[in-house]
């Protein structure tokens, strides 16, 4: 694998993270991070949709008239999302109920559309595939990080299993119910951005 292809995969993890740097796909990132399990399923779904849609649009890129490209992209993405939705309903019904409308909202998830516009329309199939995977991993990474802290601090569980031992509770430790409320998702992402930019100072805005 050549160097440029490797940066396609590694860049979205830090320097060009879709959530904290490109500010794409925030909606779902915040709404479904109460539990780690939902965040995992969401990341996998987004990865499947992004990789497939990037490949399809990249293959069609010379055929799509410029004026109607948004509608073509939306139709491709919407069909892929409908597919993912049906698979989830068949094999993971509980999770799909829990994610409710947010699976459908992958269609308008700006990461998918943003990468199609910015990358897949101008690059080859293999590079677009790598870009899709890379960005989906970068997105999933933040999603899982936020969900990890929210579930751990908010309910003392991880993936539904209790991880904080009972004697800690007996010593007077309490779960922080605040972490389960929606505003804490915003604040957690804010703090992640803060930490990332203190480490990586070239990302600081003026």
């Amino acid at each position, binding site marked *: 694998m050549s160097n440029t292809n490797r940066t396609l995969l590694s860049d979205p993890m830090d320097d060009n993270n879709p959530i904290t740097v490109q500010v794409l796909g*925030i*909606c779902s990132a915040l709404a479904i991070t109460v539990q780690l399990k939902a965040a995992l399923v969401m990341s996998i779904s987004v990865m499947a949709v992004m990789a497939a849609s990037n490949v399809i649009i990249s293959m069609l890129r010379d055929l799509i008239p410029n004026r109607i490209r948004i509608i073509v992209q939306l139709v491709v993405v919407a069909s892929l999302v409908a597919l993912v939705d049906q698979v989830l309903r068949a094999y993971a019904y509980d999770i799909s109920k829990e994610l409710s*409308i947010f699976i459908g*909202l992958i269609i*308008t998830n700006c990461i998918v559309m943003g990468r199609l516009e910015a990358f897949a329309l101008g690059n080859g199939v293999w590079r677009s595939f790598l870009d899709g995977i890379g960005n989906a991993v970068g997105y999933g990474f933040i999603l899982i990080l936020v969900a990890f802290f929210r579930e751990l601090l908010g309910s003392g569980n991880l993936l539904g299993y209790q991880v904080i031992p009972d004697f800690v509770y007996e010593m007077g430790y309490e779960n922080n119910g605040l972490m389960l409320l929606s505003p804490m998702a915003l604040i957690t992402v*804010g703090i992640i951005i803060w930490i990332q930019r203190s480490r990586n100072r070239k990302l600081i805005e003026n």
Partner: protein
Amino acid sequence: MIDYANLFIKSIFIENMIFAYFLGMCSYLAMSKTIKTSVGLGFAVIFVLTITVPLNFLIDKYLLQAGALSWVGPKYAELNLDFLSFIMFIAVIASMVQLVEMIVEKFSPALYAALGIFLPLIAVNCAILGGSLFMQIKYFSGITESAIYGFSSGIGWLLAIVAIAAIREKIAYSNVPAPLKGLGITFIICGLMAFGFMSFMGIKI
């Protein structure tokens, strides 16, 4: 009548699109740098939501739901085209946005100048598709109800974006730690505002 008023208040404050469900966050963060653009985008969202939610309601009710096609003939009564709803909704939204853009351009150049650049963005705003998807799981009884839902959710979105734009204009003058500047502080302010909006949650109307 009182039900409609309740739905109106509830969709604006208690189930605010931004603060309760985080819908339309991307354009919310990207376009809230000045009050002027945020007002323009906010009105465009109200406009499109008020049109697309009732339209998608009709499509859902008479084409997609289980048994919705029974008006065509008894043979079709068993069909359930639910799985097509994503594609249908997004197609309706994308084409309505295009149509609205053309109509506004033709009949009201002044309004077009104000809303024009925002309209194409709106097709991919989560709040619009989210409005239709929520409409689908809320089982509204009629077209008026869904129109009120669309309209009031749009107002809630407008309120949220104008409020954050006002704060962001002021915060430019304060001394924020460098790594937190811009995006970071906006997230945190937005979180604090969401706490504020949570105080409406207990209200039973």
